[in-house]
């Protein structure tokens, strides 16, 4: 993929729930360009449209109007089946509550994203092990989710989101259930992945403590992006309150 193709491009994206006087405008014409290799964070109060925006960008929620392109692909011009297939190939998800399958071990959970792609069980788990080791979970690979701490579960979820090598990784409040130190580690990890692989990582968060890791900090309110702050070319944080 050419470096000039943005990771995320959306133009005039709107999303309305309901119709007429009772319609709820969740997104009111969002324009956004995110280059590859970027960790973008979406901030804003509850109900401002953050979750709706990442749902649209991940291709799991239809928009009312506008255009979305992810690494040059317009998911909403694909059929339902093709969009489902596109998600399985190009999108990785990290959820607030991890959503690890309780009956599977850590390595099996990590391997789920490959199994969805049709890789058989043994091959998928074989490929998942080195990634878990890279994420510091080599000795916990055969533990079940209930035997893991919150931080460990989130790292398994990140492994699951990465293993099939998607280009867009969407994270919903990935640190909200973690203590500060663990949360920072998780965000550092996500940032290193985005930069190293030329992907895009989009994080929805209420956690201001992790703002300094953002390459692009976006503040939303009432369905619009009202503030953007990009990391300076000298590496200065996108967080204007950060002293770095």
């Amino acid at each position: 993929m050419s470096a000039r193709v943005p990771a995320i491009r959306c133009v005039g994206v709107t999303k309305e729930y309901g119709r007429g006087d009772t319609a709820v405008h969740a997104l009111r014409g969002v324009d956004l360009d995110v280059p590859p290799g970027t960790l973008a964070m979406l901030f804003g109060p509850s109900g401002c449209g953050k979750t709706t925006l990442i749902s649209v960008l991940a291709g799991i929620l239809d928009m009312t109007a506008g255009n979305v392109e992810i690494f040059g692909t317009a998911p909403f011009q694909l059929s339902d089946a093709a969009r489902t297939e596109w998600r399985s190939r190009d999108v990785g998800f990290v959820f607030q509550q991890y959503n690890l399958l309780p009956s599977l071990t850590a390595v099996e959970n990590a391997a789920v994203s490959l199994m969805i792609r049709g890789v058989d069980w043994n091959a998928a788990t074989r490929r998942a092990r080195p990634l878990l080791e890279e994420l510091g979970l080599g000795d916990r690979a055969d533990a079940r989710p209930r035997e893991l701490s919150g931080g460990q579960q989130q790292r398994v979820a990140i492994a699951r989101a990465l293993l099939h090598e998607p280009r867009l990784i969407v994270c919903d409040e990935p640190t909200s259930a973690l203590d500060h130190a663990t949360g920072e580690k998780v965000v550092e990890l996500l940032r290193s992945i985005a930069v190293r692989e030329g992907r895009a990582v989009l994080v929805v968060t209420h956690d201001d403590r992790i703002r300094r890791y953002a390459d692009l900090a976006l503040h939303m309110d009432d369905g619009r992006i009202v503030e953007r702050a990009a990391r300076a070319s000298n590496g200065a944080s996108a967080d204007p309150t950060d002293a770095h």
Partner: protein
Amino acid sequence: MLVGDRLKHISLVAGLVFASLLVVQQASIFTGYAGRTGSWITDTGGGDGSHDLWVMDDQVEMSEDIKPLLESSTLRIRSIDGVAWAVPLFKQYLRARTPDGRLVTVRLIGIDDASLAGGPRGASREELAALRQDRAILVPRAHLDGALRIERDPATGAPRPLAVGDTISINDHELRVAGTFDAAPDFFWDPVIYTTVSRALAIAPPERRQTAFVLVRAKEGVDPKDLAARIHQVTGFRALTTDGFVDRTREYVLRQTGILINFGITIALGFVIGTLVAAQTLYSFVLENQRFFAALKAMGVPNRRIARMIAVQVLVVGLVGYGIGAGLAAASGYAFSGAGLAFEITFATLALGLVALVTSCLVAGLLGVRRVMRLEPASVFKS
């Protein structure tokens, strides 16, 4: 996922075990009872060769429905082309007085004096030959210590089983137990007592018509069914093979007694319970695990694959539940066989149970699948 939730898994399997136990056990008991309705018919045929056909009045519905023919009927039937031999069979419900004075209703069967054709298959040649003795009767071994048991021996005052050598009286005719025979468990409970036709006619109250059935053997090379049609054409009597008579008796009993509907209700109940338990458990399982299903859908798992996952899990628990339930049903049938439980487990019964359980599970699974199909993948971010 389902297996990961041990409590739900166990409750689901337990529900299905109970349902399949009910379905298989009740169906097997029903099969057992239905099979017993023809016991006397299939037990008849010892002695001098076996017969091919039962000939009876055209209005006879089953083995216990006696509408006697004239004595001359046997002669008419013998004259029909293709008949090798034909013998009369007497059958009447009478009251027998046991040595201690009790009255017991019995089915008195009179078989051909000369050939002893129509005797019980469960009697040996010697036992059957004992009928040639004076005032002789054969009684079923199972009833010696049952319906015909002597509760108070006139000599000792103690209870004891009826035995060879004892006498019973029917219609003031004294008869001596000359032998015993084995009889298959019978749906109709009154003891069957065998004697000869001439003796039976002497004992029973006189009637113009005394021949309950005529047993017919076809000549070699003659198809019994063709012969049956010929007998019907010539005499107007109904002629049935043993299997045909068994079927007619079973169908009549099932129709008249309501056994079919009663067992059917229990079997249907098992099916409904199985479906409800499976549906309720599976549906709550789906509700509780919506976030996992939504996550999988978001991650790119197509609906049909999720439907397959649910179907496989449901079928696995269904088969486990069915296997345990059917096994318990078979074990209970074996355990109670000594107590006279009519229990006959057949391939058809097992197949019925399997189909019922799999249907239960698929119906239940369908409800869960429908819920998952409607689930928006974006809901994963709301949980």
